[in-house]
């Protein structure tokens, strides 16, 4: 018998399995179950789970909500482009637009406060990649994703776009301040 010949024993299913093999199969099974339970366990007890709150939307609808939020909460503008810096009310909702090729606006958060950050794209897929924290979330046009976030560190954070979105992809860098 060989791997390139039919099994020499016609009733190969009835052959007994060696004890070492059984043991390994058992170990593999148990390890698989542990990994499966880990994901469920983390949903119940873990503090880093991606929100499941999402809505179908349109770029126009989302942009309107974001513009209203920006108009009400802007505290200053930055750079020559006059990008608004928007202070998100602690415990409240913040909106972040992903579009070719920027993240708009700049958000200002407070450490230890929980925020509902609404993410959506105006055009192509984009990738929300918060650095150097390293949290990465897909941003999809037509979908509003509401992610509850609590910053645990202060400073200036970058939002890199890490989903390819065309020729200016590498210039798509946003900012979040945490006080």
């Amino acid at each position, binding site marked *: 018998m060989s791997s390139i010949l039919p099994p020499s024993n*016609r*009733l*190969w*299913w*009835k052959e007994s399995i060696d004890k070492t093999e059984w043991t390994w199969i058992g170990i593999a099974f148990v390890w698989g179950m542990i990994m499966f339970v880990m994901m469920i366990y983390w949903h119940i007890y873990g503090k880093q789970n991606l929100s499941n709150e*999402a*809505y*179908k*939307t349109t770029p126009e*609808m*989302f942009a309107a909500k974001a513009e209203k939020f920006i108009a009400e909460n802007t505290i200053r503008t930055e750079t020559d482009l006059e990008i608004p810096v928007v202070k998100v009310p602690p415990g409240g909702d913040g909106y972040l637009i992903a579009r070719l090729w920027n993240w708009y606006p700049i958000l200002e958060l407070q450490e230890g406060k929980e925020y509902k950050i609404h993410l959506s794209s105006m055009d192509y897929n984009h990738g929300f990649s918060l650095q150097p924290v390293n949290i990465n979330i897909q941003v999809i046009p037509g*979908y*509003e994703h509401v992610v509850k976030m609590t910053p645990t560190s202060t400073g200036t954070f970058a939002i890199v776009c890490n989903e390819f979105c065309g020729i200016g992809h590498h210039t798509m860098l946003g900012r979040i301040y945490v006080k």
Partner: protein
Amino acid sequence: MADNENDNDIPFMQKLLDNHFLLLVIGVVSPGVLYILWGIIDIMNTPLAK
């Protein structure tokens, strides 16, 4: 051929593994239901934004 005379002794699982077209069907249906169909249902159930 000798294999015909003792076909009745062949265990169920061996018969399944020797039935290539049945394997094809379950190999397409399993992900077709668990991944594609359930996935479409998930996407369709996404509520509209207010």
